[in-house]
């Protein structure tokens, strides 16, 4: 194939994205392990609770987690946070006061999604490379699209499971499902393409 600049750009962007994902996962895991070994280092770290959907600050200035039955559970109080300004007091709480299970769940969820996105990017890069090498309709591309489909399903399941034990968690769950559907359809298209290619190769 003639040097396709669009594919070259896509490969460069994909590689950059994969490196970014791998770095993100490595940094996240390092911080998580480091937090376990030396939690005192993170004592002064404050968490922006307003961006977290699973917990919120009530009128009393307490960090509240909503259970499935609708009952509220106080996780931490900002009274002891000792933040400087009154406005910040409502918003930031120290990391040690954040519910530990929340942090575990968030780590597992984020690491899982980063890992799956990394593998999806690698499979997409494989497909792009095969298109550049004029080996588009090969069996390994069918397998790549199937893998992408299953990994999108994995992301969707991860979000679905997370929404069960992280009340208030609401992420866009339709996108991974649509990506999964598109990947499985593309796998079938490539399977048909491979069948036609093999047939063409055996036409004398």
């Amino acid at each position: 194939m003639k040097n396709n600049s669009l594919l070259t750009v896509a490969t460069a962007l994909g590689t950059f994205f994969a490196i970014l994902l791998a770095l993100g996962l490595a940094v996240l895991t390092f911080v998580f392990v480091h937090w376990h070994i030396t939690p005192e280092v993170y004592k002064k770290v404050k968490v922006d609770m307003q961006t977290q959907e699973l917990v919120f600050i009530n009128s009393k200035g307490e960090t509240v987690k909503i259970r499935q039955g609708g009952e509220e559970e106080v996780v931490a109080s900002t009274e002891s946070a000792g933040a400087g300004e009154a406005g910040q007091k409502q918003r930031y709480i120290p990391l040690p006061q954040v519910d530990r299970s929340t942090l575990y769940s968030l780590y597992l969820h984020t690491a899982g999604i980063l890992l799956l996105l990394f593998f999806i990017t690698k499979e997409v890069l494989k497909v792009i490379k095969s298109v550049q090498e004029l080996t588009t309709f090969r069996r390994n591309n069918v397998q790549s699209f199937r893998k992408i489909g299953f990994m999108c399903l994995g992301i969707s399941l991860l979000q679905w499971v997370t929404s069960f034990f992280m009340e208030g968690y609401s992420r866009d769950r339709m996108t991974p499902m649509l990506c999964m559907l598109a990947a499985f359809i593309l796998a079938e298209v490539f399977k048909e393409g491979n069948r036609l290619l093999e047939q063409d190769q055996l036409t004398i």
Partner: protein
Amino acid sequence: MPIVVNIDVMMARRKMSLTELSEKVGITIANLSVLKTGKAKAIRFSTLEAICQVLDCQPGDILEFVAE
């Protein structure tokens, strides 16, 4: 497949080797082998025409339908 290629029979009758046929027909020995062993999925009319011309036979002499 119920379609059987009898090209080897015709080649034997005409006392022609695979190399000679491939040279005269203008297709590779590998492709001719695919055709001979019955692995081919399809045959172009142009190929069939060339084979029939070289072997001086009819398409029916080369292709045969055998019910499974």
